[in-house]
């Protein structure tokens, strides 16, 4: 039973109603733009799973953040390099291996998980690497065949990650390592998609704005060009057709959050980085445990999965290294530059270093998992919320409709004029 005063850790709402009939029914029932507004966020970002870690950010329902994912305090003097932070992280895993722990690196072949594997190969002895498995799928090979051929195949034991979920690994006594928060450290796909369409998006802004912004295309990571300079472009990018003023209201919400936080956010890339480092962070942290696991208790899964980048050192590095060319330079291709350089320093693959793009690998695994053994109402797309007591809320949980109807009806847009 979901009582009205229940505090939630996590909610997934979907504008295209992937999570079943529930959100569609609620959207149709809610009487005002204001009460429907949060569900409209899910139309723009599907699924919508925004929870703030810092700064002001109102949600329709009572919300708290699990301790494990709280943001460390910003330290402008943090001076460790990405390489130092990464090698030290690997050495902490090494200590745990010496104590007898066994790990599975969930490896997509993408930049974040290749950093993880690179650092382990660099810092572990061959004997210690015996305690490491690589969870990979055919997509992992396609995404980085060079690394597969030279450093994994025949050298490290592998597990097919497409048919082995987190519960299988945890029950086998293995600790899964996920690189899922990699984007949170460097920025977000949302930003990349905007930068990639910059010319098109500015083309029908007012002549003056277009003139101004056309010269700023390659300065997305320049601290001297404040993100508000791009306000019209961001609003246009955030907008949802037939939802008047939606983009502006969402932009103002982000701005309010930034202004009430104590972490500096200057450039356009900072703006998008902050969204994922702050309000989308929890999603990246727990989605594996909640949606790629059927048997292990939710709390146990969340606590036992090793979130590689959910580490105070990485987060401190991330807050102290904006606009210096390490996260991004001028274009999407330079995204995660420092991570690609870390890999190159080890594997010397100049093609990967020059041309590897961040890809969306999540859907290839998550959306292709076998769920036919589960009751249709207990499958991942019926899991819509997690309470503070780690109770999963499904679309058919008693009281669920009343809960969301009540809280959405009372939601107030109080950060800007509507």
């Amino acid at each position, binding site marked *: 039973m979901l009582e009205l005063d229940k505090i939630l850790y996590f909610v997934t709402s979907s504008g295209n109603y992937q999570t079943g009939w529930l959100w569609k029914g609620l959207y149709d029932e809610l009487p005002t733009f204001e009460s429907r507004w949060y569900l409209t966020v899910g139309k723009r970002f599907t699924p919508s799973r925004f929870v703030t870690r810092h700064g002001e950010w109102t949600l329709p329902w009572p919300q708290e953040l699990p301790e494990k994912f709280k943001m460390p305090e910003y330290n402008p003097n943090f001076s460790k390099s990405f390489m130092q932070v990464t090698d030290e992280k690997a050495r902490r895993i090494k200590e745990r291996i010496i104590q007898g722990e066994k790990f599975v690196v969930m490896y997509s*072949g993408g930049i974040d998980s290749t950093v993880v594997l690179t650092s382990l190969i660099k810092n572990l002895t061959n004997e210690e690497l015996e305690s490491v498995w690589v969870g990979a799928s055919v997509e992992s090979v396609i995404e980085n065949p060079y690394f597969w051929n030279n450093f994994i195949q025949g050298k490290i034991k592998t597990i097919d990650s497409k048919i082995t979920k987190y519960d299988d690994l945890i029950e086998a006594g293995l600790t899964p390592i996920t690189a899922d928060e990699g984007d949170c450290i460097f920025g977000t796909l949302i930003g990349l998609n905007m930068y*990639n369409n910059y010319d098109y998006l500015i083309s029908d802004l007012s002549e003056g704005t277009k003139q101004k912004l056309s010269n700023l295309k390659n300065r997305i990571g320049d601290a001297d060009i404040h993100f508000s300079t791009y306000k019209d472009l961001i609003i246009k990018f955030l907008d949802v057709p037939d939802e008047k003023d939606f983009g502006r209201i969402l932009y103002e919400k982000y701005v309010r959050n930034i202004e009430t936080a104590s972490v500096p956010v200057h450039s356009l890339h900072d703006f998008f980085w902050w969204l994922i480092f702050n309000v989308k962070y929890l999603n990246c942290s727990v989605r594996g445990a909640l949606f790629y696991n059927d048997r292990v208790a939710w709390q146990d899964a969340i606590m036992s999965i090793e979130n590689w980048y959910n580490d105070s050192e990485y987060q401190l590095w991330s807050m102290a290294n904006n606009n210096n060319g390490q996260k991004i330079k001028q274009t999407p291709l330079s995204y995660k530059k420092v991570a690609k350089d870390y890999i190159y320093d080890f594997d010397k693959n100049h*093609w990967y270093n020059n*041309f590897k793009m961040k*890809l*969306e690998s999540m*859907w290839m695994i998550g959306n292709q998992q076998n769920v036919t053994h589960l009751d249709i109402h207990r499958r991942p797309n019926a899991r819509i919320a997690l309470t503070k007591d780690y109770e999963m809320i499904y679309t058919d949980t008693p009281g669920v409709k009343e809960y969301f109807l009540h809280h959405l009806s009372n939601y107030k847009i109080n950060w800007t004029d509507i």
Partner: protein
Amino acid sequence: MTQKRFDNHYRYFYHDHNGQRRRYGIYSPGLDRFIHIGDLDFWISFETANILSSKINTIVYILPPGYDDMTNENCINYSLFNKTSQKLWTSNILVGRQNPALKMLYPDDIILKSGIPVDFENNVSILDDLQAYTNYVYEQSMAIKLSDVFYNHFNHKDFMDNFVDQETSKALYSAKDWTNVNLFQKVKNVLYLSNTAEEADEKIIEIWKTFTDDIGFMIEGYYKILDRPVPKELENYVGLNSYKNLSVWAF
């Protein structure tokens, strides 16, 4: 009649609505530039893009009518104006996947001259190397396909795999191609994993040299298609001397 958006009738894959021969562009979403323009066949461009995917993710586009000024020599300066609707399932092509897809650009899609990608303005040789390898793979892909259909006359393995039911294929598993070891798949793998044309050339020669069957005519044909002399290392493998085991009646 002008081709409408999303009208993907097969007639539009080789000719546009004006009856003009279409061209095919290999486009890099990361660079936001075309890295190759071909006018032979989109299957060859697509094969090239698949082989290149070990190094760069690309999309093969059937180019819209016009844009005759864009050539294989200058295409690195040309980008796509509107990528918002260019998707692979729900993902934008920018972040969609590593291996390529074939997609259509329609008459109202716009290609822009945008100049050298800013990431490489001060290091254009990296792009030169990329395009040199792309051109090389494109030629090799053409030679592989043509050699296979011209000279690999008894490629029954391929036939079994593609046209015969799986049960029969399993029961009669000894079906093979003339090269016995799936030679052309090996050559493609070399192209996929090599870093330079020189490295690939050397490895391809080694593949040819491993054959025990008399396929000298295939080696000769392969290099003829490429319009290149048979490498010195393979001279003893071609010509009449090489047909040591093959019955004359085969010709």
